[in-house]
């Protein structure tokens, strides 16, 4: 291989490393957790460890941010599926506490819009 070949392969490896860091590291590209309740909307930065609460029709749901990931830790629903869904850090991850009408979505810059279309 020539020097230019090595340079190109090194640049491709650097791009791969950058993509892994930005897209596969928890909190890498995910900047905000958007928590939507019936009366309130929270936009929570994932890089700050914190505890948050949001009110729904059944009561208060609690969420916890640790190490760039957010999880429901308490909710007044019956089956606790939102808590069992675990922590979410990936860009685009979505979960909800349906009985308490609280949804959680991980978004980054300019990620809103339609999911997909086909024809």
């Amino acid at each position, binding site marked *: *291989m*020539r*020097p*230019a*070949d*090595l*340079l*190109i*392969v090194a640049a*491709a*490896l650097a*791009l*791969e490393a950058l*993509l*892994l860091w930005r*897209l*596969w590291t928890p909190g890498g*590209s995910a900047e905000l957790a958007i928590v939507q309740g019936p009366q309130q909307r929270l936009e929570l930065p994932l890089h700050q460890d914190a505890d948050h609460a949001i009110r729904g029709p059944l009561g208060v749901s609690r969420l916890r941010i640790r190490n760039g990931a957010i999880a429901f830790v308490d909710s007044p629903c019956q089956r606790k599926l939102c808590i069992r869904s675990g922590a979410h850090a*990936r*860009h*685009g*991850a979505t979960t909800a506490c349906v009985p308490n009408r609280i949804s959680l979505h991980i*978004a*980054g810059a300019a*990620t809103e*819009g*339609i*999911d*997909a*279309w*086909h024809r």
Partner: protein
Amino acid sequence: MPGTAEAASALRDARLARFAALAAAVHVLEAGLPSPVPGIKPGLANIVTLIVLLRHGWRAAVVVTLLRVVLSGLVLGTLFAPTFWLSLAGGLAAVAALGLGALGRRAGGWLAPGPVGLSVLAACAHIQAQFWLAWSWFIPHPGLLGLLPLLQGAALAAGLLTGLLAARILEAMQRKAAALPAGSPGGILPP
């Protein structure tokens, strides 16, 4: 003599048509291979593009790429379907990257990439163009971004593989050309 020029032009066209047919055949065969993740393919048709670039120049590589995309679209029944546009975008990005590589070869010295560097450059440009077109046009969902590191890694591996294969084939072609009598039709092989 006009007759000689016409004959040379016809010979060149026929040669490019043969390369395009070969590239399209490889493309179609590869489309039948199972893939663990959509979009991950070895890209063996790029070997043909690379050989055309190194032996007959960048313009010939562009012609072969465009013909390959259209021909394989016709054969696979995907002409003007989303996969056709993805294939076209990838092919155009790859030949644009190969154009940069060809400029580097013209400059010579340490800037001149060999088949492996050119192949990696083309494979990365190909997958990036396809991905961003798919993401912006067909599936604008942030979840798709999670696939990008996988696709880029696969493109790097495929680029290395096809580059090494192209280098071996070019060496064999050079040996064969050297064995031919002087004046036989051959290609340009800068450094």
